[in-house]
């Protein structure tokens, strides 16, 4: 039986091919291609993975080995905004556990979980390089610093953050 693999969109293919133009072989852009498709679709489904693998002339299994290695490639659906909570040592000293508890209380999700309305996914992340302003987290593309667990709603509200 021929498996039906949905095609990549024209804009996905164009973006992937632009990356292929400056590398020696197609599979070298595996990570870029996964990120491009993820940017369009929010995550990388099995179907998307197979479509990318075919375009890069590599096996889906090999590509999945790459995809599952990297914590910012999502092989499961994630919410509209991903919360990347820094739980490395300086943020731990400064109380990231309390920040996490406040998020859980506010959104009803723990690490690795997505809210029922699909608005947020909460994930841990390696040290965010803002330890002088710990505890910190990212909500979508925005860095939130000097977090106060009592005011976590403000960080989650989507207001643009002072940087």
């Amino acid at each position, binding site marked *: 039986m021929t498996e039906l693999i949905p095609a990549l969109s024209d804009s996905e293919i164009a973006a992937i091919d632009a990356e292929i133009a400056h*590398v020696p072989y197609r599979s070298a*852009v595996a990570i870029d291609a996964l990120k491009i498709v993820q940017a369009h679709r929010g995550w990388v489904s099995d179907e998307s993975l197979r479509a990318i693998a075919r375009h890069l002339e590599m096996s889906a299994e090999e590509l999945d080995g790459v995809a599952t*290695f990297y*914590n*910012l490639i999502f092989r499961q659906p994630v919410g509209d905004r991903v919360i990347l909570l820094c739980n490395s040592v*300086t943020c731990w000293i400064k109380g990231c*556990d309390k920040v996490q*508890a406040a998020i859980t209380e506010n959104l009803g999700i723990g690490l690795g979980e997505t809210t029922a309305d699909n608005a947020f996914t909460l994930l841990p992340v*390696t040290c965010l390089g803002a330890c*002088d302003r710990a505890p910190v987290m990212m909500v979508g593309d925005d860095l939130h610093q000097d977090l106060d667990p009592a005011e976590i709603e403000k960080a989650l509200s989507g207001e643009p953050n002072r940087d």
Partner: protein
Amino acid sequence: MTDAPTHPLTRNVRPDRRPTDMAAYEANGGYNSLKTNIGQRTPAECLEIIKDSNLRGRGGAGFPTGMKWSFVPMDNATPGHKYLICNADEMEPGTFKDRLLMECDPHQLIEGMILSAYTLQADIAYIFIRAEYHKAIGLLREAITACHEKGYLGDNILGSGFSLEMHVHVSAGRYICGEETALISSLEGKRANPRAKPPFPQVSGLWGRPTIVNNVETLCNIHHILEFGADWFQALGKGEDAGTKLYGVSGRVKNPGCWELPIGTSIREIIEDHAGGMEDGYSLRGFLPGGGSTDFLTPEHLDLAMDYGTIGKAGSRMGTGTMIVLDDKTCPIGFIHNLTSFFARESCGFCTPCRDGLPWSAQVLESLENGDGRPEDLETLAYQIDYIGAIGNTHCALAPGAMEPVQSALKYFREDFEAHINEGCCPYERSASGGAVS
């Protein structure tokens, strides 16, 4: 020519951290070094100056930059590309210096990279940057575009005959990508497993071609050294080491931050003067001098100079130069449990000692922290320190680095381990799940 600066790396850093654009960068002497070196000095002359400057890598290992570069074949016997890669994958716990450099002065990194590539005769350069640094990614891309418009990047730079293309590669996560051979694997689109050395990347790196990987702060120094000279750079340092260093302090200090200071500044000056000393109600128990994979030092070491040799002799490493402070109200076992769990999570999984030994160590530390520890747990930790802490038993330096804070915690805070075992609980208010004392 601009006066020789005393704080070359941060001379364009504004108090509000607003980024410096091309016009402001050039108004303050930016790209002078490019214009006075490229096509004016030979690559070999540039390399001699970098060697003479005694610049050592600022990413953590402290390897002499000029020596690292001297292993790159310059005879062009095998035709093909040579690569320069900037390691902008800052993820070492407690390290927040490269973000500052890239967000405040992106052109400084670009100018440093162009002259580094010229010295190495590399024709393709990558900035390998973590995806979370959105602001820096945008600024670096703008800076590269601005350089193309000025003729500082692209074909035949300033009529010198030297050409360079530069790409910003946005990573997809994982701490191990900061290891230079893992970074190369990742840039090739693979799982970021480190590679055996030799062959060293200088000979066989990205796609089998000669490749140099340097940290952001290292590369930011290059054009200053080529403009103001090796003697100037040597004179900036206070002790044996040359130049300035971005030092940072985080944890319960009054004024956590990052400052450019002469390399060899005393730890006391950094923690007490620049970081303002400990927060009220907290005293200093110890500190990791340069990120999460360096050995603890204690208050008795405060008067040591922060340079590679001095910190090495004291039993630790200067690492990234960004200190993490342990206060007297934070549990040292909780502290190293956090770090060991981090390293266990970030193991690439390639070699068994690291993949299995780190979670094992983290579990032992967790049971100790929770008050379920037994005296023989300390023997298990000692065994792990000897075994996975030794390079040669593991494929790369991740697990040995992870064991550094553990072994020195056992040395300096042994009574805390014993108290957890004897009392059957964590004696600190600040427990693993309880949040910080506030």
